[in-house]
């Protein structure tokens, strides 16, 4: 692993036998989910549409069971707090949720005001809000946009404002639910780079729900694949993504990884120790293979 710096392992999210059924539905949307996520991890959560990724994210900050009614079984503990015993606004200070549609998570008439929204709700002193808002806007790269109205921004900029506004609350964990599905590939790439920086520089734990593994996989320290409400695979990205099982589920594995698989199936294993996730890594492995021949 590239950067398992000697951090003490602190568990920030723990779920045990977590099962949730939305009110009015017969089948649970997630079943028996048992996860333990440690501080500083960069987790990619993926799986076919409707497998329960969003539902799981909602459990992490208490939207389930406080906002969405239904039957919750098992346990979710976030930053040491049992989610069913603490209101969403308290959990929001530990877990920041960024949603798919950037448009529907900005309420204010200017960027700055939006970033301040959560802190204003908490009733923090004005100077503290000012400090944190400026900091969050700078970190998320939207400081120059602070007086603009949300509709004047591109999708990527809007999503960055959404990230800034959860960052301002100084959470330990940021959960992003398909944050790039409204963006073009370049915009998506930039957002991933920025999320990676948050993870590296601030030590924020990242849980990223994503289908665009081609762009995102290289940042992950861990990939979790869900199917039909259950966690199917959970482990090192290179291992999980090179499994045949993952591909057959319809997970869009990185092209470099697929290339590796195909070569291997044809009896041309690339010798280098690791499974490639990016075109660069694949090119490197192929060059090495040529040299050693």
């Amino acid at each position: 692993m590239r950067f398992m710096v000697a951090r003490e392992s602190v568990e920030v999210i723990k779920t045990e036998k977590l099962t949730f059924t939305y009110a009015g539905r017969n089948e649970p949307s997630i079943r028996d989910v048992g996860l333990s996520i440690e501080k500083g991890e960069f987790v990619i959560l993926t799986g076919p549409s409707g497998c329960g990724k969003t539902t799981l994210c909602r459990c992490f900050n208490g939207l389930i069971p406080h906002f969405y009614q239904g039957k919750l079984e098992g346990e979710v503990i976030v930053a040491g707090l049992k989610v069913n015993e603490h209101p969403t606004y308290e959990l929001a200070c530990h877990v920041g949720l960024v949603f798919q549609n950037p448009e529907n998570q900005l309420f204010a008439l200017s960027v700055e005001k939006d970033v301040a929204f959560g802190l204003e709700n908490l009733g923090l002193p004005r100077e503290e809000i000012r400090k944190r808002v400026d900091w969050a806007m700078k970190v998320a790269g939207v400081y120059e946009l602070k007086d603009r109205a949300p509709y004047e921004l591109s999708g990527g900029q809007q999503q960055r404002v959404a990230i800034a506004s959860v960052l301002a609350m100084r959470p330990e964990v940021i959960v992003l639910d398909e944050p790039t599905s409204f963006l073009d590939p370049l915009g998506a790439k930039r957002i991933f780079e920025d999320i990676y920086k948050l993870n590296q520089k601030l030590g924020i734990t990242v849980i990223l729900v994503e289908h665009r593994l081609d762009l995102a996989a290289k940042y992950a320290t861990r990939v979790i694949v869900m199917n039909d409400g259950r966690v199917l695979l959970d482990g090192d990205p290179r291992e999980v993504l090179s499994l045949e099982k993952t591909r057959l589920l319809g997970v869009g594995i990185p092209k470099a990884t697929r290339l590796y698989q195909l070569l291997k199936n044809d009896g041309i294993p690339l010798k280098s120790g690791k499974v490639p996730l990016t075109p660069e890594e694949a090119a490197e492995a192929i060059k090495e293979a040529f040299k050693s021949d």
Partner: protein
Amino acid sequence: MSFFEGLKFRKVSSPIHDLDPRIKFVFVLVIFVLAVVFAEILPLLFLFILQLPFVLLARVGKQWLRSLKGAIFFAVLIFLMNFIVSFIYAGYVVTAQMIENAFTMTFRFIVLVSSFSIFFLTTSPDVLGLALEQSHIPYEFCFAFTTAVRFVPVLADEAQTIMDAQKARGLELEKGNFLKRVRNYIPILVPLIVNAIRRSLELAEAMESRAWGATKKRTNLYVLKPKREDYLLAFITVAILALAIYVKIFVPIPKITQILRISA
């Protein structure tokens, strides 16, 4: 599209835009009340001229003229109504006095329109929202106000998209009698409403995730603090009010027709 464009607000800065909206509102209110109290053309003219520096300083002349132009229809209506009623009342004769009275009523209406258009043209919704908040109006209401302003352009865009999509499927909006036309709008309203409901659910979710309702004593990043200019405006407002009361009690205001007769 120009109609939808008009729904978007822009942040503008000018000596008038930067005034404390609460004091500006009181000023406009005083003008409003005085315009109703005085029924002579001279004080109304004074109130009208008083507004011109505000229009010029705020550089909203074009929009201001547009709102006055919008009022022309009603102005003409008011003039005719007043004129015709007094014409019949006086036994079918026309006097200069009657024309002056009808004109005064019309002009009063214009002064009222102008004062409110100046207020809304020079007060951006976010400042207005802030003023509402700091006037001890419940935060939920202020939030509803700013959110509505924020989503009007979004919904307008969406309405346009849906209209285009339905037209592409053969919906004809401008066909048939009145009832039929109203019915034509159902395929536009239904998706619009469904979308708005879905949108509001997502918004509620995002609000919850940003500590909505954590405390009753919410802070606000901004505070409205009256500046020198605001005190100046407050002073002007009080001065106008005092002058008006003085004139109303002690000075008989001549009508234009009377002045003309004297000089003639």
